C-alpha cells in the first residue's frame, strides 16, 4: 500500500494517541494504584505516585489535545460524527479529566490532611473511571458503530446515542485500556521507587495488571464478532501473525523482566507491547477512520489544510521534542540514591 498525505496525518494522530497512552495513560494508571494503595507502605506508595506524576502530568495530557486538534483540522467529518454519536461517553470522559486534574492539583496545594485525603479519593476514582470510558469510545469506533447519527433519521435517543457504545465489546476495550494503563504505571513506578520494598510492591502490581491485560484482551477477542472489520484484521490478515508474535514476545519479555527484576527491560517491553496493540488496532481498521464506511481519504480535509497541518507538526516537533526530552531528563534522570531510573 502507498501512503497518502491523509494517511500520514492519520498516522501522526495515532502517534499523538500513542504518546497519550504511554505517558498520560500511565498517569491515570498511577491514580488507579493510588486508589488500590494497601499494606504497610500505603502512604509511601501514594507519595511515590504523586511525586512521579506531579511535574509531568500536564505535559502528558497535551498529547490528547494534540490528537483532538489534528483530528478536527484534518478529518473534520470524522470529528463531527464522533462528537454526535459518542456525546455521552465523551462528556463523561471530560468530567473525569476535569475532576482528575483539578483534584490532583488541589491535593498538592490544599495543605490540610483531611482535605488531602478527600481530593486524593476523587483523583483516584476519576483515574479509574476515565480510562474505561476512553476505551469504551475506542471500542465503539472499532466496532463500526459510529455512523451518521441523528441526521433527521428519526432514531430514538437510545438507538442513536447510547446503543453504539453500550456494548459488551466496547466495555471489554474499556477494561483493556484500564488494565494497560495500570500495567504501564506499575512498571514505570518500579523504576521511580527509591527503595526495594516499594519496588517489590509495584513489581507485584505490574505482574497482576499484566495478567489482567491478557484477560481483557482475550475477552475482547472473544467478543470481536461485534467488531467485524477490526476482528477480521486482527485474526485473518497476513500481517496479523507477525503482529501477534511481536506483541506476544514483548509481553513475555515484560513478564520475564519483571520476574527477574530487570526493570529497565520491563519498561521498554511493556511500552512496546502497548504500542504494538495500538498500532495493531490502527492497521486493522485501515483504510477506515470510522468503520464501517468512512475512510481516511473520504474524511480528509482539502490538500492545502493537510499540508499546512503537516508543516505545523514538523515545526511543532522541532520545538517540542527537545523540550520534552529536557523535562524528562530533569525529573526522570538517575538520582543519587539507588535503585535508579533510566533517562
Amino acid at each position, binding site marked *: 500500500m502507498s501512503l497518502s498525505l491523509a494517511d500520514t496525518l492519520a498516522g501522526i494522530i495515532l502517534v499523538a494517541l500513542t504518546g497519550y497512552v504511554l505517558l498520560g495513560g500511565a498517569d491515570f494508571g498511577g491514580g488507579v494504584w493510588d486508589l488500590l494503595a494497601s499494606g504497610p507502605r500505603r502512604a509511601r506508595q501514594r507519595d511515590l505516585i504523586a511525586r512521579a506524576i506531579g511535574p509531568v502530568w500536564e*505535559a502528558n495530557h*497535551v498529547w490528547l489535545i494534540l490528537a483532538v486538534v489534528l483530528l478536527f483540522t484534518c478529518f473534520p467529518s470524522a470529528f463531527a460524527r464522533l462528537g454526535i454519536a459518542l456525546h455521552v461517553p465523551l462528556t463523561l470522559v471530560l468530567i473525569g479529566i476535569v475532576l482528575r486534574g*483539578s483534584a490532583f*492539583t488541589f491535593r498538592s496545594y490544599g495543605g490540610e490532611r483531611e482535605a488531602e485525603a478527600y481530593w486524593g479519593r476523587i483523583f483516584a476514582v476519576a483515574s479509574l473511571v476515565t480510562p474505561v470510558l476512553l476505551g469504551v469510545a475506542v471500542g465503539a469506533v472499532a466496532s463500526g458503530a459510529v455512523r451518521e447519527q441523528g441526521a433527521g433519521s428519526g432514531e430514538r435517543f437510545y438507538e442513536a446515542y447510547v446503543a453504539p457504545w453500550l456494548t459488551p465489546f466496547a466495555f471489554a476495550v474499556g477494561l483493556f485500556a484500564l488494565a494497560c494503563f495500570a500495567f504501564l504505571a506499575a512498571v514505570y513506578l518500579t523504576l521511580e521507587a527509591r527503595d526495594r520494598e516499594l519496588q517489590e510492591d509495584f513489581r507485584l502490581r505490574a505482574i497482576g495488571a499484566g495478567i489482567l491485560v491478557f484477560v481483557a484482551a482475550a475477552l475482547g477477542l472473544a467478543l470481536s464478532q461485534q467488531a467485524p472489520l477490526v476482528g477480521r484484521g486482527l485474526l485473518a490478515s497476513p500481517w496479523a501473525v507477525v503482529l501477534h508474535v511481536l506483541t506476544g514476545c514483548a509481553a513475555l519479555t515484560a513478564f520475564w523482566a519483571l520476574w527477574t527484576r530487570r526493570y529497565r527491560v520491563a519498561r521498554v517491553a511493556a511500552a512496546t507491547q502497548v504500542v504494538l496493540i495500538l498500532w495493531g488496532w490502527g492497521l486493522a481498521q485501515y483504510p477506515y477512520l470510522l468503520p464501517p464506511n468512512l475512510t481516511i481519504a473520504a474524511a480528509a480535509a482539502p490538500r492545502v489544510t493537510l499540508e499546512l497541518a503537516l508543516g505545523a507538526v514538523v515545526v511543532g516537533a522541532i520545538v517540542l521534542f527537545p523540550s520534552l526530552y*529536557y523535562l524528562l531528563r530533569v*525529573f526522570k534522570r538517575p538520582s543519587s540514591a539507588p535503585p535508579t531510573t533510566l533517562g
Partner: protein
Amino acid sequence: MSDLLAARSQMAVSLAFHIVFAVIGIAMPVLMVIAERRWQRTRDPIYLELAKRWARGTAILFAVGAVSGTVLSFELGLLWPRFMEVAGPIIGMPFSLEGFAFFTEAIFLGIYLYGWEKVSPRAHLFAGVLVAVSGAASGIFVVIANAWMNTPTGFTLVDGRFAEIDPIAAMLNPAAFPQALHMTLAAYAATGFGVAGIHAFMLLKERTSAFHRHALAIGLLVGAPAAVLQPLAGDIAARHVARHQPVKLAAMEALYETRAGAPLKIVPGIEIPSALSLLAFHDPRAVVKGLDAVPREEWPNVPLVHLSFRVMVALGTYLALVALWAGWLAWLKRDLTVQRRFLWAVAVATPCGFIATEAGWMATELGRQPWVIVGVLKTADAVTPMPGLIVPFAAFTLLYCALGVIVGWLLYRQIVRSPGHT
C-alpha cells in the same frame, strides 16, 4: 429550555469559566518571573516568597485552565459538530499551533514548579519566561480562530459549501489583530490589577507589610501600562467592528436607525451628539449603520449586547484612570503604598478587569448571533442533533461552580495571606 439554548449556555459557561484561568495563566507567569528576577538581583527573600507563591497560584490556575480548555476543544465537536465539519479545515491551523504552544507552556511550567533545586537559577528563570511567552502565544492563537468567526476569510462559497480554502488567509482575517491585541492587553490589565488590588486591600489593614508593598508594586507594573494602552486598543477594535461588523456595533451602541452624525448614548436619556460617528470613524459626520440595515431575525440580543459593552467600557475606563493616577504618583516620586485613597481605588479595581473581560466577550459573542460564522452559518444550524442537552449543561454548570469556589479558597490560602499565617 431548547436544545440550542442549552448548547449555547453550556458553551458560554465553559468559556466564561475557562477565560478567567486563561487570562491569569497568561499574565501570572510575568509577575512570577519579575519577582524571581528581582530576587536574583536583590536577594530580598520577600521576592523569592512572592515568586514561589505566584508559581503556586499559576500551578493551580494552569491545571484548572488546562482541563477546562480540554473540555472546550471537545465541546466544539460535542455541541457544534456542523460548525467544526465546515470550519475545522480552515481554522484548524491556529488551533494546531495553539496545541504546540500549550505543550511548551506545560513542559516549562513543570520545570519551573518542580525544578527550583534541579536546574540552574538562570535556566529556571528562562523556563519562567518561556511559560509567559508560550502562554501569551496560545491565547493569541485561540483568539485568532475566534476572530475568523467574526470576519471569515480564506474561502469562496460554492452552493453553500466552502471551496478554494486558504487557512493562512483565514488566520490573517481582519479581526485577528484588533481582537488579539485587545485580549492580550486585557489579560495583563485584569491580572495585574487583580493582584495589585488584593494587596492594596491588605496594605490598608497592615500598613507596613513589605510583602504586600512589593506585591502591589509588581502587580501595578504589569497591570497599569496594559490598562493605559487598552483604550487605544479598544479604539482600534471598535473602528474595526464599525467597518467589518456593523450589526455588532449597532447592537453594542443600541443604534436602531442608520444615520449620519450618530450620537453616543452614555446612559438612557443622555447622549453626546455625533460622538459615535467620531469614535467609530474618526469623523463626526460619518454614517453609522443601524440595526435597520439587516432584517429583524438577524439581530442579536440588543439590550444584552449593549449592556455588556457599556460595562466593559466603564470598567476599562476606571482601570485606565487608576493606572494614570499610579503613573502620576510615581512620577512625583510619592510612595504609593501610603496613599490611602489611591490604595482604596486600587482595591476596588480588583475584580474590574475580570468583569470587563467577561463583559467584552459577552458583547462580541452575543453580538455575533444569530451567526456562528458571520454571514455563512447560523448557530442554530451548527448545533448537534442530540436532544437533552440541558443535562450536560446542568452538569458542567454545577461542576464549574464547585471548582470556582474551591479555587478561590485555595488561592486565598496560598497567595494572599501574609507570610506567617500559613
